[in-house]
């Protein structure tokens, strides 16, 4: 009797597993649904732009219903250095430039336009250092580090602040980041190149060439 009950129990589990497996059909299943879309009211001014910004949102969670960024209305224009390749604007990014290197995925150089409150240099530096696993200099040393950052004038009077974390990256094969920051009115442009230290170093001239080509549209 005991064995009968046990066999019954095991048998029912096996049946459930088999039925469950059989029900998993691999042919594509058509789904139909009704989607109701209520668009946001247009902003009071400058309705051509709606680039989301700020740090908490994952780019993959960008709004689904938005107007496409019009290349002609981008706040900055630039020239892609040869042989870098340009990808279309996407989400928060004004552009993504790909840098090919043999034996590895292409490096990405991103151009992101954000609002004025994103321009805080200290907060950004700490965040980027965190991403690169670098301990930020303490106290006055941090202020000196910020004061010593390279500043340069670009096209049409754009004032650039250049950040290169290379001296702070200890390992030769560690990650490094080069960033160019400029502000034009209420828009802050971040140009970031992230990758292995030695490769980013090799792209330094092209990175600067890109910054010098950027001007307000």
């Amino acid at each position: 009797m005991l064995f009968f009950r046990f066999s019954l129990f095991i048998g029912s589990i096996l049946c459930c597993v088999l039925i469950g497996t059989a029900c998993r059909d691999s042919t594509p299943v058509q789904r139909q649904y009704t989607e109701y879309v209520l668009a946001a009211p247009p902003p009071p001014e400058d309705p051509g732009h709606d680039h989301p910004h700020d740090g908490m949102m994952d780019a993959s969670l960008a709004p689904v219903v938005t107007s496409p960024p019009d290349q002609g209305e981008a706040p900055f224009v630039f020239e892609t250095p040869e042989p870098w390749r340009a990808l279309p604007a996407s989400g928060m990014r004004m552009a993504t430039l790909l840098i090919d290197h043999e034996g590895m995925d292409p490096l990405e150089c991103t151009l992101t336009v954000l609002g004025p409150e994103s321009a805080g240099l200290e907060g950004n530096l700490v965040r980027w250092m965190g991403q690169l696993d670098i301990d930020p200099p303490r106290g006055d040393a941090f202020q000196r580090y910020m004061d010593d950052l390279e500043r340069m004038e670009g096209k049409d009077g754009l004032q650039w602040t250049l950040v290169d974390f290379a001296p702070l990256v200890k390992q030769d094969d560690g990650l490094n980041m080069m960033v160019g920051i400029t502000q034009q009115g209420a828009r802050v442009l971040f140009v970031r190149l992230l990758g292995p230290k030695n490769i980013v170093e090799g792209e330094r001239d092209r990175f600067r060439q890109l910054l010098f080509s950027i001007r307000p549209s």
Partner: protein
Amino acid sequence: MKIASSILSFFLSIRLTVVCLLLLSVLIVAGTLYQVEYGLFLAQKRFFDSWLILFWGFIPFPGTQTVLSLLFVNLFCNMILRFSYGWRQMGLVMIHMGLMLLLAGGWVTRQFGQESFLSLVEGEGSNVASDYREWEVAVWKEERETVRNVTAYDMKNIPDGIALPLDAWGFDLRVDIYHDHARAFRSTNPDHEPRVTNASGITMLEESSGGYDPQEYTPGGVFTLRGLSNSEEKRLLLFGGDLEPTRITDDTGTYAFSLRRKRHELPIFVQLLNFEREFHPNSDIPKSFSSLIEVDVQGVARQVTVEMNKPFRYQGYTFYQASYADLEQGTQLSTFAIALNYGRIIPYVATAMTFLGLAVHFLIQLYVRKGSRDRS
């Protein structure tokens, strides 16, 4: 008979319970360490959703599914075969039932649970949420601005060459090439005549190796649209990064084609009325953020505030305040993580039952011992 007896003894053994608990501890520690480098998704897939794990590629180790199934069978066998079902065993039966219910609840959540997100700009509203990892090809006829009758196909494991019939409009979409993760390129030659139609002007796709988590993937594919009223065949390039659908017009109207995150229909329409946030003094670190939403259930609207640690629940759905973003012109975008879990109540019931079982068992033991002491 001897073999059956051995199998039964194996499933009834208390040693099996102990071994299962030890294996679970190992799996939890290994999964926790693994996720530091490879992320939550991969750790979950490798350690907790699997039946068998190969450590260092060749050492087999039971996955969490195997261990939990064994534990379930062990508990069940003990409950139905070992217990005498007298009043003295009542507590133990309740404990076992509670633990089994807990395991069953985990299974229900895993099989039927659904996780998605909804991002809304202030003023925007929708009745569909987006999946984190799965994508769909969605097609609708553009008739009204606010209502879309969508026909969609899931793109998970879709083979190249398959035709996706769109019977409502009398045409079909053949999948020529599909990449789960792709990079898109525009032509740099202005004289180049594109051979594919795409809303963003993309002319070429390249498969990309991608990262560990499919959540970061952006798929792309080339499709052939057949059976248009003018008998023309159109090649469409659909890319997950397109911000607008690709539109095709024939004599019967304009149709929109979009490769987008799989949509899950919600039982309610949600509109974001206002988003507010508060920062810690002199810092950019948010202290709290909340969304005021209007929820429309079959024409009846009510306003609800969703805050961090204060989700909104409706039927089996739970809306969590997940993240936000500032947009230009002062408007804000709020993102809700939406979990559909039919077994949400099960862990509470199971824990209560286990606790009650422990209490009952303790009291029964106390009574029995007191009785035997009095007798002696």
